[in-house]
């Protein structure tokens, strides 16, 4: 017997290729994952987000205000979706996360400009995600001054002298020091929960099928709903422990501020975890083996990480990617937890992400129950 035989090797290779082809899901993953990563990384991710929604609070619509707004919009960073004269309305918009910036131009702005009396504008940025605000803020002072100078007819050559004229006051709200952990740690709670909850429950039924215990289970008088609840409820307990651990660590180790209501947060986390275990259970009604369940979990996990706004700014993604991002519970969870923990949002301000999470719970439960096979057919 020789130490190497091409025939033996080719027999082994042939067997591996046949098995690889038989396992459709694995095969699809091998093609799908690289393609997905390429598209997502290549097109969707942008660390210098532009075209960010902003609100303008301008009691008077004078020519200087318009010039500044136009100039800000021309930078490509700002998109003034809301123009209001009410500071309270703008406050609600930024707290809800509907806008990333609020630009306030005081009512005596034009008179001060004309008098050369140190005109001020206030820009409040939602700095929960420091990356979102930084680019937009850095271009701010210069652009606004130039616009003002141009509009007031002064010589551009006199720019340097006039630079001091306009004072742009920047407030980085919710995370004034721009500490990345404040943004990442609450998000990590979502990511950790998603990883463990979905993966654990995705094995729930496949394990029974693989071990041959499914046949016995189905032959006994347990209904689909009972089996589903029996499988997912224990993981709610596991999730509760994880939540306590991560929130405790967020406070103790990272000093993440917690300004909102703990109860509101816990309700949100509960709905999120429920949606995750139901999703996992749905996967387990589809996957035939535990290996496939793992792969499907991963297939779901990767884009949700990239598109939810956890790793990269959500607003930096193109429209289609944002739409895609809406289909992941994590996206809505991140909005909810950041709003509650860092901004102190109340229920009315987080009702949209909460409602989205409830929709996921119902949709996954329905899907799992209809997918569940009461027979071995």
């Amino acid at each position, binding site marked *: 017997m020789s130490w190497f035989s091409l025939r033996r090797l080719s027999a082994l290779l042939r067997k591996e290729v046949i098995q690889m082809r038989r396992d459709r899901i694995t095969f699809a993953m091998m093609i799908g994952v690289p393609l997905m990563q390429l598209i997502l990384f290549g097109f969707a991710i942008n660390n210098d987000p532009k075209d960010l929604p902003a609100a303008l609070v301008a009691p008077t619509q004078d020519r200087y205000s318009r010039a500044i707004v136009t100039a800000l919009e021309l930078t490509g960073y700002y998109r003034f979706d809301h123009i209001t004269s009410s500071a309270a309305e703008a406050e609600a918009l930024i707290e809800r996360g509907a806008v990333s910036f609020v630009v306030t131009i005081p009512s005596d702005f034009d008179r001060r400009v004309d008098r050369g009396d140190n005109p001020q504008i206030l820009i409040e940025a939602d700095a929960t995600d420091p990356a979102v605000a930084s680019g937009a803020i850095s271009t701010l002072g210069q652009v606004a001054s130039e616009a003002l100078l141009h509009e007031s007819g002064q010589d551009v050559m006199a720019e340097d002298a006039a630079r001091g004229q306009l004072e742009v006051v920047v407030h980085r709200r919710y995370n004034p020091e721009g500490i990345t952990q404040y943004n990442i740690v609450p998000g990590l709670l979502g990511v950790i929960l998603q990883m463990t909850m979905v993966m654990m429950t995705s094995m729930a039924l496949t394990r029974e099928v693989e071990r041959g215990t499914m*046949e016995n289970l189905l032959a006994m008088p347990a209904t689909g709903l009972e089996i589903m609840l029996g499988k997912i409820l224990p993981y709610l307990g596991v999730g509760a422990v994880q939540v306590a651990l991560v929130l405790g660590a967020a406070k103790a180790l990272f000093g993440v501020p917690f300004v909102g209501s703990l109860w509101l947060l816990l309700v949100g986390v509960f709905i999120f975890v429920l949606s995750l275990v139901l999703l996992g259970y749905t996967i387990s009604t589809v996957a035939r083996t535990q290996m496939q369940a793992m792969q499907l979990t991963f297939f779901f996990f990767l884009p949700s990480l990239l598109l939810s706004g956890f790793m990269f700014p959500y607003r930096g993604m193109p429209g289609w990617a944002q739409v895609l991002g809406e289909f992941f519970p994590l996206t809505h969870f991140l909005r909810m937890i950041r709003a509650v923990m860092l901004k102190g949002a109340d229920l009315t301000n987080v009702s949209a992400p909460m409602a989205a999470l409830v929709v996921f719970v119902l949709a996954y439960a329905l899907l799992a129950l209809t997918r569940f096979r009461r027979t*071995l*057919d």
Partner: protein
Amino acid sequence: MSAEPAIRVEGLVKRFGGRAVVDHVSMSVNRGQITGFLGPNGSGKTTMIRVMCGLLTADEGSGEVLGYRLGRDTRRIKREIGYMTQRFSLYEDLTIRENLAFVAGLYALRPVQRVVDEVLEGLGLTSRQHQLAGTLSGGWKQRLALASCVMHKPQLLLLDEPTAGVDPKARRDFWEEIHHLAAGGMTVLVSTHYMDEAERCHFVNYISYGRLVASGTVEEVIAHAGLTTFLLEGPMDKVTAAERMLRGMTGVDETAPFGTSLHVVGRDAEALKAAVQHAAAETGTRMSATETSLEDAFIRFMNQSTDNMS
């Protein structure tokens, strides 16, 4: 005992990927009897049993199990029957006690602790109740599985090759238990391909390639085959020579060596006798008439249906 059979199915068809695994089978199982369900591997026994306990839906045909309609009253059927799967399907990572308590809970038996205690007592496993089920030997696993599916005292017990891979002593004990249950009024349908087990049944159904080939008591089935059997005995080389000679001779349908003897089976008694006499004289082996066994009958049925297939 009610006259109504425990199981009655008519024209049952089950296809997998277009191939009929169960092909228009009609049969019934009488109450309080042990009915054997026989047939070679892949003949459709497991599929039939799964259809009857609601784990598979039939493509055609209808049936009643304990008076409940198949495919409609599945939930009620599940509550009234006990089904022991071919493969050990209790949880290997639970203890014996935990497994029994789980099953008792699913059937809403109360009080769970006492019910489990009684079952453990009956099994003689009280001292090992905290052992993981996965660490039991094959024979014990099978006894535990049986105990778990009769805990709720079902009227009908379906057993799918329950004694595969179990030693003869454990098999004998197992059958004693089944007879004990039947004596208590339970109806039992048991699939097997061991002939000695078939002979322990009150009634047998023989299925081959998805079709019901024979049914009746063991004696009836053997008689139905209409076979005559002779025995040839002698030294091994002579018996082997006789077999070679007999194969293909008119009147000889099957030959089957059993150690130093040879069973020769045929439908045409006269032609068979002539052939065997000739072979015995030629090879110097001793010839005698013997009773046709159930196995001879089944081998005949099997080959018959293979012939029909081709």
